């Protein structure tokens, strides 16, 4: 083991760790605000990566139909309620956001030669198509159960995950895809080659984490989310609708997931079911942070990435075993050091 191998392994671990860190942050965010352990987080990674790959192949990604279908279902559910309550003024925005825009997006995808667009535009389209799925899923799956116990929310979360995997297979097929790298540049660092793509992942993740920090510290919506996370009832009394908080945080979580997917797609082959394992490793990071602390979760995720990279060098057959066994000492340590708090029921 020389310095070069050490550097390469560390570089690989930090790249993967950066992606896990983003997902860990999203998981902590969703859990803090809605008490949902958001298992489908990884699916957004796969959907993001595969939607971008489909666009680049000049195909219309199947996710657009999911967007249209979910939008239409929400429009029917909410429209029916609005009609019964005679709140006609709310109908046009509901229809525009849930039916009009998805249909417009679908029409746009058919009209545009998506394969020939510049990369940044393809990325934007991917975000626009996949990210709205987050709040829509919240509206359909979690909002009606917002005050249910954590266990019920977890079961629903598993159901959403299984449904999304199945739809992923339907949309993208069994085979994986890989997108061309954003940059071909490569540097030399202490004798070890350093891919530009790797630097991009780390820089973009760091930028996103800083962006999230400012969002939570400086904007009214960010503060509203933090308030909800701290005390749900108190936040509601202060005029923060829990449904808005839920939708907002799932939008953020979906955006983080899709963004990670776009970052990771040029480095590895993504399959319709790849997201789960990536999400799970983010989850290990989030557990290290006790599903509460953002910085500890991010550091934990980087640790998972490094552990994964070094264990794949020393004992490749046991890599996953080592990574997931990490959770046992962490849980032991956490349960010994922190006082157990009974889950509050609302």
């Amino acid at each position, binding site marked *: 083991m020389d310095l070069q191998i050490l550097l390469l392994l560390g570089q690989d671990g930090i790249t993967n760790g950066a992606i896990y860190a983003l997902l860990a942050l999203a998981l902590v965010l969703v859990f803090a605000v809605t008490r949902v352990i958001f298992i489908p987080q990884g699916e957004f990674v796969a959907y993001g990566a595969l939607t971008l790959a489909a666009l680049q192949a000049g195909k219309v990604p199947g996710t657009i139909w999911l967007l249209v279908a979910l939008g239409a279902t929400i429009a029917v559910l909410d429209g029916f309620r609005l009609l019964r309550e005679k709140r006609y003024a709310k109908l046009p925005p509901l229809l525009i956001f849930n039916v009009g825009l998805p249909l417009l997006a679908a029409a746009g995808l058919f009209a545009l030669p998506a394969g020939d667009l510049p990369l940044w535009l393809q990325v934007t389209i991917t975000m626009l198509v996949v990210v709205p799925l987050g709040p829509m899923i919240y509206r359909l799956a979690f909002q009606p159960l917002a005050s249910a116990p954590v266990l019920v929310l977890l079961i629903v979360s598993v159901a959403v995950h299984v449904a999304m995997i199945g739809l992923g297979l339907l949309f993208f097929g069994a085979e*994986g895809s890989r997108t061309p790298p954003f940059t071909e540049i490569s540097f030399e660092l202490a004798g070890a080659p350093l891919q530009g793509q790797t630097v991009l992942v780390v820089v973009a993740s760091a930028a996103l984490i800083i962006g999230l920090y400012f969002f939570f510290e400086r904007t009214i919506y960010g503060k509203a989310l933090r308030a909800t996370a701290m005390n749900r009832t108190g936040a509601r009394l202060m005029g923060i609708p829990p449904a808005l908080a839920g939708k907002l945080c799932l939008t953020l979580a979906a955006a983080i997931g899709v963004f990670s997917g776009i970052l990771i797609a040029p480095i590895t082959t993504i399959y319709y079911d790849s997201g789960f394992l990536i999400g799970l490793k983010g989850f290990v990071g989030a557990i290290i942070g006790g599903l509460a602390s953002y910085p500890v979760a991010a550091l934990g995720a980087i640790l998972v990435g490094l552990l994964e990279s070094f264990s*794949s060098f020393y004992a490749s057959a046991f890599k996953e075993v080592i990574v997931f066994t990490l959770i046992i000492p962490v849980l032991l340590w956490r349960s010994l050091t922190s006082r157990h708090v009974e889950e509050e029921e609302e």
Partner: protein
Amino acid sequence: MRKKTMIALLSAIAATAQADINVGVTLSATGPAASLGIPEKNTIDLLPRSIAGQKVNYIVLDDASDTTTAVKNTRKLISENKVDVVIGSTTTPNALAMIDVAAESETPMIALAASARIVEPMDEKRRWVFKTPQNDAQMATAIIEHMTSNNVKTVAYIGFADAYGEGWWNEFSKLAEVRKLKVVANERFNRTDTSVTGQVLKVLAARPDAILIGGAGTPAALPQKSLKEKGYKGTIYQTHGVANNDFLRICGKDCEGTLLPSGPVLVAAQLPADNPVRQTAGDYVARYEAVHGKGSVNAFGGYAWDAGVLLGQAIPLALRKGAPGSREFRAGLRDALEATRSLPGAHGVFNMSANDHLGFDQRARVMVTIRDGAWQLAR
């Protein structure tokens, strides 16, 4: 009265059904093995609908790459659909689990999975089981022969951390020892891994002349891409598990010059004119591509086609023993399958015997290299 009519009606249905030959098929058309199961399913659609004047019905079920479902499907096919023969399943664990059900009901079964354990060692149960894909050992020998004749002295292995990778490692390490090839590294990775940097660095540190990647489908492209990225200059070998076009799409220019063993169907048009497989394989390729487009054919569909070829030969003989749906017909079918001699299929020439329910020789494999994103017969 009504009861009597019902019985009359039912026996009438049974009588008409008896005239047809029912072929039960269970394939992994969804789930992790879907990229193998889908071309197989497409191929079943191309099989003849009538053999020796008898109508043939294909009842195709999906087992979602799941062993329990494969067994359930087999039971359903045998007890409800009264099939005369079962084709499937796509993966080795599924096929192994189905053996008991097929043998118990004395129904011949043609597996489309590769492991030699499906038909070996021959026993009372495996009497009823045949398979069409080449054994891993045959493929491993082809790789080793190619390595030794190209002056490879040291070799490293990176394989799946599952039955596939482990099976290849067993075959390969055994044969390599016999042929005096030095295996300098042995690493594992997972189908779902997003990075194999650690394994690749370890392999590179051992400086092997050649590297064998024991993976199936597109996940096998990941170590290859990492090796190229880290500047590996030696020869890279893959297994026949990667012989589909998605692998070429994912691997792109990093796969130029990669060598792999494969059934001859992959390069049917490039086979020498005197090769007995050339015509049957070419026939299959033409039929498949007529429906699914140029360049769509792959090795996995060929396994299903060969199951059809075997049946096409065996059914006329079995019809002399009994009517379809009867025990005699099934036993006759088994005997006829076992008696298959010099029958060219898409993947090779079948010469079955009581102890060999695959019946392939070295004509069932060729070394293929990837040139300009296409399969090419290696000299």
